[in-house]
């Protein structure tokens, strides 16, 4: 165990899944569009154009605030961050500095079976820049402004994270929240959810020098980069070297962090209040309407699943699939008992995941799943039959309807079964006398015969009980 303790703070950039861009009416989805075709005077920064705040982005930020247990600012305002770069059409980015819309919240992560709170310092709205490409061998670069003006929320954690594992769990939790609330599509490969990690180590109460690891976009790499960086800093301190405040990148192929920019090269962004957008009050009715839309938060689902004793992997799986989580929530409401609910989870994380993508239509409902679990539990159908009909259930049919139409109901009726058993006893005098002479093992023969006669639809425990009763005479 190292004597140095790491302190980690994280900034996450999430792209909002709004219909239009942050400050204009352009489509927020430019996939498949030719460069510079999804632009207007505002996002291309023609002279005289002015920004107008997208209400949909505000609504999503409010949802996020609810997910982060945050205060929703009464008054929020925008600021300008000035810098020259070809992908920045206005020469400044509109962001939030003084009065971010989300202030002071927390999320809970599950570490070693315990829930731990990680503070959210704030989260603010801003706009994305265009995209630069550098064609190989050419002396010029190209800019595509289709992405310019895409709404982003930057989430800034408190430095409450104490290990790479916690960092990973924190990132996953935030990802769960923003995807399950429909705020962000969470596509990390396309940069819709990416993060910067700030890490320092210290053997005293005072924080060490902070190093920023920039632009990571996978949970696994975040964990690896942090492990590497903490080790690097420990080694430096052990050798008596001084850690310098800098920005570093992560080289996946070499599994190493590498220096990018020192603090001295930092820009002066000349922040000041955006004069084209006056500060505005968040209407309480607007906020409470959004609150009503959110029925269940991922953390509530996690706590419930955790109480059921589900593994963290199963929890993650359900939470990361909002649709599956809602099927479960509905089923749980009907089933009520923990042991039955757990059976519903088993269906969802097992068979359902296996066949999901191959379904003609994915119409599994919580009600049908609960019914299926109930039918097995009451012995009306066997697990085998349940498995056989699960695909139909997933495609929207009610389990009760299926078993009726296919004649799959188990024979549990005593008189019907007794009639069959008596006939078998009469037809087989030898085994009958063997049993009566004390040979218990012939019992299996009789049960087998009954199952054969009923084509497997007899309730096995019932058959056992009746065979014994009738053989004993």
């Amino acid at each position, binding site marked *: 165990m190292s004597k140095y303790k790491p302190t980690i703070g994280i900034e996450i950039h999430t792209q909002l899944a709004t219909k239009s861009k942050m400050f204009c009416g352009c489509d927020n989805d430019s996939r498949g569009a030719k460069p510079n075709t999804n632009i207007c*005077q505002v996002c*291309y*920064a*023609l*002279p*005289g*154009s*002015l*920004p*107008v*705040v997208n209400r949909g982005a505000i609504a999503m930020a409010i949802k996020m605030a609810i997910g982060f247990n945050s205060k929703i600012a009464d008054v929020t305002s925008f600021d*300008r961050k*000035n810098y*020259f770069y*070809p992908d920045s*059409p*206005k*020469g*400044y980015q509109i962001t939030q500095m003084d009065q971010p819309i989300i202030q002071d919240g927390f999320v809970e992560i599950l570490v070693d079976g315990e829930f731990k709170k990680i503070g959210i310092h704030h989260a603010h709205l801003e706009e994305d820049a265009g995209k630069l490409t550098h064609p190989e061998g050419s002396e010029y670069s190209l*800019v595509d*402004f289709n992405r310019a003006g895409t709404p982003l929320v930057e989430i800034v954690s408190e430095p409450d994270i104490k290990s790479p594992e916690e960092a990973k769990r924190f990132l996953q939790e935030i990802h769960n929240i923003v995807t399950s609330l429909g705020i962000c599509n969470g596509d990390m490969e396309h940069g819709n959810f990416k993060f910067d990690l700030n890490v320092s180590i210290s053997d005293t109460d005072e924080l060490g020098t902070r190093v920023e690891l920039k632009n990571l976009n996978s949970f696994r790499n975040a964990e690896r980069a942090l492990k590497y960086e903490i080790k690097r800093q420990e080694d430096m301190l052990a050798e008596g070297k001084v850690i310098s405040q800098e920005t570093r990148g992560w080289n996946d192929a070499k599994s190493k962090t590498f220096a990018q920019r020192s603090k001295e090269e930092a820009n*002066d962004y*000349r*922040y*000041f209040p955006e*004069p*084209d*957008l*006056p500060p505005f009050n968040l209407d309480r009715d607007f906020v409470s309407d959004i609150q009503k839309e959110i029925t269940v938060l991922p953390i509530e689902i996690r706590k419930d699943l955790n109480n059921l004793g589900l593994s963290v992997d199963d929890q993650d799986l359900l939470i990361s699939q909002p649709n599956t989580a809602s099927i479960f929530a509905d089923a749980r409401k009907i089933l009520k008992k923990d042991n039955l609910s757990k059976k519903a989870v088993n269906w969802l994380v097992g068979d359902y995941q296996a066949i999901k993508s191959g379904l003609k239509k994915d119409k599994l409902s919580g009600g049908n799943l609960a019914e299926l679990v109930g039918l097995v539990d009451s012995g009306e159908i066997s697990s085998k039959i349940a498995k056989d009909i699960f695909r139909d259930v997933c495609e929207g049919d009610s389990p009760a309807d299926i078993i009726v139409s296919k004649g799959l109901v188990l024979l549990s009726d005593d008189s019907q079964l007794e009639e069959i058993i008596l006939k078998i006893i009469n037809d087989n005098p030898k085994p009958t006398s063997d049993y009566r002479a004390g040979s218990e093992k012939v019992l299996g023969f009789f049960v087998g015969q009954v199952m054969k006669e009923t084509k497997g639809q007899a309730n096995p425990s019932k058959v056992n009980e009746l065979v014994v009763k009738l053989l004993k005479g």
Partner: protein
Amino acid sequence: MVDLNYLSIDAAHDMLVSGKVTAEDLVKFHLDKIKKLNPKVRSVITIDEKSAIDKAKAVDTKISEGKQIGLLEGIPYTAKEMFMAKGTKTTAASKILEDFIAPYSATAIRKLDEAGAILIAKVNQDEFAHGGSTENSAYHPTHNPWDLDRVPGGSSGGSAAAVAADMGIFSLGTDTGGSIRQPAAFCGVTGFKPSYGAVSRYGVISMASSFDCIGPISRSAKDTEIVFDAISGLDPRDSTSVDYKLDKPKEQLKAIYYEVGNEVDSLINNQNFNHLEVASTKPIKELGVTEESLAAYYILVPSEISSNLERYDGVRYGARTQNSSNLNETYTKTRGEFFGPEVKRRNLLGAYTLSAGYYDAYYKKAMQLRTMIKNRVNEVLDEYDVILVPTTIEPAFKIGSKADPVEMYKTDVLTVFANLAGVPSISIPFGFDESSGLPLGLQIIGKQGDDKKILEIAKTIQDATDYHKKVGEIKL
């Protein structure tokens, strides 16, 4: 032959409706004036002759079909180079936008289009509206129709000179610190800076977003009101636009007049203009905001300018240097070659006052000062319905006489406080400078949203006086 010289909007409208003149002839009359006078006045940058005549013909067709026309239909006007008008060259009088054609129209232009007014030309200004004399135009200075050796004022000097020379019946200008009112005063015409937000800024090149106001320059308060009614109102494309409940004034109004030591002082004393009583006269020092306003203005405005002008970087549109070998040079050389000296000065000043370490000492302090100035102006306006104060201390000065930028900044000393406070102010012609015979202006300043009130007062004063009817004779 009917006399088409110096028509008011009303008079022109009546002539159109009664058939005394066609819209085509009215437009051609003003285009001819441009052709005749502009070589001397040099107000116009681009004439839009063909499109103007086409639009006039459409109005004539409408009239001949016996259809009703609106008050502004067929009325020729000009607009400052700051205004985006689809298909027209829009340069902000800068080399950096020398060949820039506006691909869309400003809200004010669109509203005038819809009202049927006809844009005949785009007119000169100080580059990006940085200046008070129109000498900072990257193309050429404009000359004052009253005395061609003198400036028309600025930055909307092209607009004021055009109206004074009858090149169009009215013009649209922008006013960030006095840029409508000061040239209006220098050229003997009426210039109106509405309340901040009363007219949408959308599509008008930004100078300093929290100050910029759009307004008309015309030959009377009556014409001014007609244009203001057409262009004002809430615009969903401008988040700073405001839906003022514009009230007509109450019966008896009380004004305070601040003396500045020019001829206006003696003309105004003890005047009664029907419903307006000049109830108190005090030296300007007692208003206590003029010098302070200038100080706050020249920190806050360059700060906003430095940010608003970052988009002129040679990347997407406008001029780009031919002499760069890397990205940084593209920026520095483009902006170095195509921005004029005053634009560079303000960019540097603004970048400095916003920079880390100086923000608190300059920008933040100036913002606090702005609040104090606003409070002080409102305090006076709580006691009096309107503030009366001359628009400038001196009449129009000689071209080239104010080479020191700070001397030029000082010409705004009586106008900037209205921009800091966001209150409406109209400058009307009021008397003449004794030694030069040049026109002087009087400002009427009201509370934010009192636009209709001060227009009403301006009309009242113009009913009782004829300063606004005098025109400068151009020596050809």
